[in-house]
């Protein structure tokens, strides 16, 4: 899907480039126009390289303007006939959607945010959670959790993200992941753990949510993003600013449930990621066991149980998925001696 759209974009870039050079020869417009065209193409190619995939920021200002005016005045938008505008049309835009180009761009951006946009969204969400519960004031703890988390994340398919981890001041048992590589766990949950392998399993679960873009999918589904015009008119603005505008409420997403299947998938992946990193495979299941023993009426698990399947169900699912695959798993490390004790 992603590749197809990338290809479409690249093809349209090539077409645009071809048209430009032909024009240059035929009309002998000289070096100035050639350079201008080259600059525009380079810019767009770079954005593609950066994972931008024709994000609306790439939209040249005139095209955006004409698209806007097209909705009110011009019946046939000039954009469809201008070679320069070709690459900026979202790959998913159908001809009949031209009257609402902005909407198409909004949807397109939504589905395929660039890495920078993903990180900006995650930063906004995470910063809002931190507004509700600040970091535990213990630098050694925070550094330790980042070290463990970074190593686990390096075993994933998105090792390139700038992964960030934190322990927050809350007695709840919970953990949060946000797009772009942000992971928070509560002090309450941390204190339930007994060794590094357990921490690795929990972080692995959260990392899996990010690798699989589970939250992004919820954002898409629930239309929490009010992208639209702001993504286009603020095209030269900072990603952070855009993310703030795009999210109706930063931390609200964290109070919502993902699909049950997303949780089961994150459990399966969490176990594997921790194992790949050299840890005992059963760290996450042990934490689930512990959480499962917490009384359902205990406030500390209210949000967790509201947003996740019960630990018993998660353990059973994990067992079904693992089948015999863990029977002879090489004994990994638990590193209880290195585990940072938090009082």
């Amino acid at each position, binding site marked *: 899907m992603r590749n197809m759209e990338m290809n479409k974009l690249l093809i349209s870039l090539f077409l645009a480039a071809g048209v430009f050079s032909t024009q240059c020869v035929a009309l002998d417009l000289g070096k100035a126009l050639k350079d201008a065209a080259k600059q525009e193409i380079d810019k767009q190619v770079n954005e593609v390289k950066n994972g931008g995939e024709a994000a609306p920021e790439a939209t040249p200002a005139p095209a955006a303007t004409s698209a806007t005016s097209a909705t009110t005045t011009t019946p046939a938008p000039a954009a469809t006939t201008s070679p320069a505008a070709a690459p900026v049309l979202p790959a998913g835009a159908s001809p009949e959607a031209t009257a609402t180009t902005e909407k198409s761009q909004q949807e397109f951006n939504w589905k395929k945010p660039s890495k920078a946009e993903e990180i900006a969204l995650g930063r906004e969400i995470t910063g809002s959670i931190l507004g509700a519960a600040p970091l535990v004031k213990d630098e050694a703890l925070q550094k330790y959790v980042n070290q463990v988390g970074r190593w686990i994340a390096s075993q994933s398919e998105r090792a390139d993200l700038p992964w960030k981890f934190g322990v927050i001041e809350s007695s709840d048992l919970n953990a949060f992941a946000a797009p772009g590589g942000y992971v928070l766990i509560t002090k309450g949950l941390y204190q339930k753990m007994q060794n590094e392998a357990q921490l690795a399993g929990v972080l692995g679960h959260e990392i899996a949510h990010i690798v699989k873009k589970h939250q992004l999918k919820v954002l898409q589904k629930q239309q929490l993003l009010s992208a639209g015009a702001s993504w286009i008119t603020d095209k030269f603005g900072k990603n952070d600013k855009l993310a703030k505008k795009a999210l109706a409420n930063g931390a609200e997403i964290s109070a919502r449930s993902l699909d049950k299947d997303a949780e089961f998938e994150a459990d399966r992946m969490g176990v594997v990621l921790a194992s790949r990193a050299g840890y005992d495979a059963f760290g996450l299941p042990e934490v689930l066991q512990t959480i499962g023993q917490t009384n359902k009426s205990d406030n500390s698990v209210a949000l967790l149980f509201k947003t996740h399947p019960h630990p018993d169900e998660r353990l059973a699912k994990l*067992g079904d998925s693992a089948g015999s695959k863990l029977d002879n798993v090489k004994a990994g490390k638990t590193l209880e001696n290195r585990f940072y004790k938090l009082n």
Partner: protein
Amino acid sequence: MKKLLLLVLSAPLIALAGEAGTALKADSVRAEPYADAKTTGSLSKGDSVDILSKKGAWLQIKSKKSSGWVRLLSVKRGGASSNNAVGGAIDVASGRAGTGKVVSTTGIRGLSAEELKAAKFNEEEMKKMESYTQSASDGERFASAGGLTKTNMAYFKGAK
């Protein structure tokens, strides 16, 4: 009362004698902790078991019907009827169970959905979080200091 219990049971991790457990699903009980070991019986979902010990991916159990080894992911710690009353012997053994079981400690707050919805972005805390970022090579150094070595393992497919 609970604290006293914790103190008394400061046994090594392996000694799980007497801990109650419940079968989360039907599974075979084997003579030894290996998949190809002889089957000595079976568990049905919801069966009560006594957990005797743990070895790798396996738990040694005893139920009314049978005794032997089952995959540890097939058994939930704690009795069938209790959501909470039975503290895990594994927690107890580590000496850390006392830190979290009762969480309504003064001065520490929870985190409700309402609080999250009302939360305001905190730039200062965010910057602090960013300041703790570790690079991939930091992670590698940390791993080798702990004697951790990478292994290959494919993700599991979701069960039907």
